[in-house]
């Protein structure tokens, strides 16, 4: 049986771990609400964007923007992967990467090249060991990601698409369903799926200032940026939720273990006292 000192040492070290995990849990719990608010605040922007880009495609069908044209053959695929900067959030990143790898291997079987832009340190660290081409990466978005932080990453992919370096673009991120559930989702970004808003049926056109092509370009770029921004915020909320849950489990486990070890310690102490007494009694009897 382990000695008393050994057990108290173990109890102490588990207690220290428990302090860390419970602190992390509390921090995440308080951040969830904030990141959820951020997530909801961007919804109107993306909704309006979708409406306008829908109107634009209705108003001027003869100008086809490159972003809406479907390519016949797909030889190169781009992914934007949204991950977290920090770990200790359960299987959140790993589930996401696994889903991504499964999707990628489907393309690679068809001999398509895969190109990536990674957001967050975890994706950068993971995919540098995978045989894919990383075009760009951004990390350190922090608690309040700004849309301007993402412009660079988005631009790399959009330019690759314009130059036909990629024929399809996907975004991979965790979808925040509720604090208990987060799902990895892979969404097609480019070519832009057609909008089937039938509100404006008649033939009409905008007055464009300065001109149709510039505006179409501007709107689609912003629309895509908006979608990616939203994915980043959703991933952030997922991160906090997943971390809270993982840390709660760890804290509970640590608590249980400490209780159990305490019991073992008490038993060991009791055993040694009993032994001492019986030794004394035995000694006295011998005299």
């Amino acid at each position, binding site marked *: 049986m382990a000695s008393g000192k050994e057990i108290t040492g173990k109890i102490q070290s588990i207690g220290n771990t428990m302090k860390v995990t419970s602190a992390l849990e509390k921090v995440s719990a308080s951040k969830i609400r904030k990141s959820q608010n951020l997530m909801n605040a961007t919804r*109107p922007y993306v909704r*309006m964007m979708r409406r306008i880009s829908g109107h634009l495609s209705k108003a001027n069908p003869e100008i086809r923007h490159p972003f809406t044209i479907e390519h016949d053959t797909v030889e190169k695929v781009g992914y934007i992967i949204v991950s977290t900067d920090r770990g*200790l959030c359960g299987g959140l990143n790993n589930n996401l990467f696994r889903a991504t790898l499964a999707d990628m291997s489907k393309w690679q079987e068809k001999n398509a090249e895969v190109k990536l832009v990674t957001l967050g340190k975890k994706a950068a660290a993971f995919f540098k060991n995978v045989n894919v081409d990383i075009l760009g990466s*951004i990390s350190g978005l922090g608690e309040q990601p700004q849309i301007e932080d993402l412009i*660079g990453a988005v631009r790399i992919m959009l330019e690759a698409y314009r130059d036909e370096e990629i024929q399809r673009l996907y975004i991979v991120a965790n979808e925040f369903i509720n604090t208990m559930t987060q799902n990895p989702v892979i969404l097609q970004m480019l070519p832009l799926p057609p909008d089937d808003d039938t509100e404006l049926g008649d033939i009409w*056109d*905008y007055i464009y200032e300065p001109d149709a092509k510039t505006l179409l370009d501007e709107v689609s770029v*912003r629309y895509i940026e908006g979608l990616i921004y939203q994915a980043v915020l959703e991933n952030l909320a997922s991160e906090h939720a997943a971390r809270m849950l993982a840390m709660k489990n760890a804290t509970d*486990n640590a608590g249980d273990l400490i209780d159990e070890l305490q019991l073992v310690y008490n038993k060991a102490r009791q055993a040694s006292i009993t032994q001492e007494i019986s030794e004394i009694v035995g000694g006295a009897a011998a005299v």
Partner: protein
Amino acid sequence: MTKTIQCDIVSAHEEIFSGEASMVFASGIAGELGITPRHAPLITQLKAGPVRVQQPNGEEEFFFVSGGILEVQPHMVTVLTDTAMRGEDLDEASAKHAKAEAERQLADRSGEKDIAEAQAELSQAVAQLAALEHLRKKLKR
């Protein structure tokens, strides 16, 4: 005939204004705009400048935008404002930054080692706890 027009002003971070307006003023790329209900469809880039919304009760709301897009439909005005300063050069610079970051990450395999190590230790401790818990449950059965 309607005397008001639905006006929505949004940025990527928040909904700035949403409501009825009797007139909306903004500075488009080609000049000042005054939009009344039943205006012809129009879409324009916005210059940095004020956007004024005249509400039916005579009050005026005043916003400053650093650029964006304005869309007009006969029954609604939508203003999408940029929170970022935009420009070909600025966008290009941030794209370059992202590329450089990717290269740095690929080249540098030791960066931010301390934090990573501490974190790895902690996650190991957590994993151990989970494993012990699992084992304990098994033993009980």
